[in-house]
């Protein structure tokens, strides 16, 4: 029971959804959407597990006075602040003017945007370290990156304005993006398609059963 039922569920659901792709007749035409909805519903239940886990881990830290336990109180505070306000506001919780929206705009958004913008710094440090002409591959990487980076700002115009129209940095950037970059992306995408076909099949056939199958 414990082992066979999950394997059977996976196989039946998966193969059925593949076959249904070729059947437009109702009710099968909506079944793929329906199963996607089921996923979201299950995930909506599961988020309780995650949040309870988060609260437990941080409660443990406070209780055991582990290093940095004071910050765990901040986690608790933040969580309940949003949850209480969010449920209080009801379904229109994100409408402008609500308290939840204020918290979103003044707490969540700046944290989010700043964490995102840190990328600007990391892009710089990563390119400084990694873009060295150590070998042929790295050299190609480096040159393509330099071209495109400069071709996208007015600075690139100054560097190459002496060249005839059509041969300037901006044009080279466009050409790289349109052709060689497209080619490589296609190779990667086609490979991914095959990888997904194969690993879906392995999962559905129960060959790859590291989870949902244990004792």
């Amino acid at each position, binding site marked *: 029971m414990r082992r066979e039922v999950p394997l059977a569920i996976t196989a039946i659901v998966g193969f059925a959804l*593949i076959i249904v792709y070729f059947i437009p007749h109702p009710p099968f035409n909506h079944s793929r959407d329906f199963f996607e909805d089921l996923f979201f519903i299950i995930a909506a239940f599961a988020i309780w597990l995650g949040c309870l886990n988060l609260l437990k881990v941080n409660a443990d830290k406070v209780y055991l006075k582990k290093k940095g336990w004071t910050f765990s109180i901040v986690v608790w505070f933040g969580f309940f602040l949003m949850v209480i306000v969010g449920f209080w506001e009801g379904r229109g919780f994100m409408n402008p003017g609500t308290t939840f929206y204020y918290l979103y705009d003044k707490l969540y958004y700046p944290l989010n945007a700043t964490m995102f913008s840190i990328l600007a710094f990391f892009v710089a440090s990563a390119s400084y370290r*990694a873009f060295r002409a150590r070998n042929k591959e790295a050299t190609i990487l480096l040159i393509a990156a330099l071209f495109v980076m400069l071709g996208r700002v007015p600075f690139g115009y100054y560097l190459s304005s002496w060249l005839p129209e059509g041969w300037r940095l901006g044009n080279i950037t466009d050409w790289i993006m349109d052709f060689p970059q497209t080619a490589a992306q296609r190779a990667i*995408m086609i490979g991914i398609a095959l990888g997904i076909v194969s690993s879906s099949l392995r999962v559905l056939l129960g060959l790859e059963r590291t989870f949902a199958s244990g004792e």
Partner: protein
Amino acid sequence: MIRFSFIFLFTLLLFSSATGQEATLPPSPPTDVIAKDTPNDAGGSITITWKKSPDDIGAVREENKVKGYEILRSTESEGEYEVLGKTTAGAQTYFDTHAHNGVPYYYKVRALGIQSFSESLPSTPAKAKAQWIDWRRKYTFLLALILALSIVYFINQAKSGKQLFIRKIAGLEAVEEAVGRATEMGRKIFYIPGISDMDSMQTIAAVTILGQVAKKTAEYEAKLEVPTSRSLVMVSCRETIKEAYSNAGRPDLYNEDMVYYLTDDQFGYTAAVDGLFVREKPAAVFLQGQFYAESLILAETGNYVGAIQIAGTAQPAQLPFFVAACDYTLIGEELFAASAYLSRDPKLLGSLKGQDVGKFIFLFFIIVGSLFITFEIYDLSFLFR
């Protein structure tokens, strides 16, 4: 008689007058209106086609006498017709998507002039119907079948003991080294299974790879930690590690707290994992699964603390960042091959060989198809539509 001469005079006037008045005359009507059930669908739709009015020059332009077409529908040939919708000039098809299955409908098409219009004869009746098979997808079906069969074929070959060659994948050769190093240094191994949920094949691949990595950490008694961004992923990872540890004979080393949830939020998760990296200084970091913009933030921080980093993703946009900041990167398809490769299970390796058959088919058609088109022999691209 008086009336007749009036009309006669009027027509004469019209013919002799300037184009301005000509415009008020209706354009000639469209002909050959044919209504048929729309094929390959779930019903509820009828396709109407017609031959355009001879006055229609086919483009939306000032000088075109036909400004568009209106499509009318009725349940009786001579009954009352209601206007269904409009198309632009030049159009020759319309899809009625509000038909009831099994009800016969008649259609007329109106050519619209500036102030007047002319109507076609009604079509023969048509009924909407749902189909059982979408024939437009026949080549998809065929291809899926060929791929599935070749994968299953090679899995069986491998099962029967045939040796299959699989090339080296550098990133995966390094897994053992990374785990070994962490054990030596007595530091943690972080496994980051991406930020997507279990509704992504990449996450599922990440979880299966985790199974193989966990087997190694169990053998080496290395410390493994898996912070997740999704609750379902947390649950799956726990199941996977538990299974791996008991298979490796070390269920005693498994502990549920190895896997924990942080937050569903992309950058909230990133901020927390960054903090973990700098505080715990892991010896090895695995970044496997579906990543977005946070890829570089995580990889740069991991690099900063001196961890060996093995990344893998099928997000083409994030690969450059992993390649730049990590020691090894599994590119696209390699991510899906990783668990098979690491397990060394002949059955799983067989499936990799099956994938190669797919690659061969695609390559063949890219080359032959392109050559055919170049020499204008035949367009094969319909096979992949």
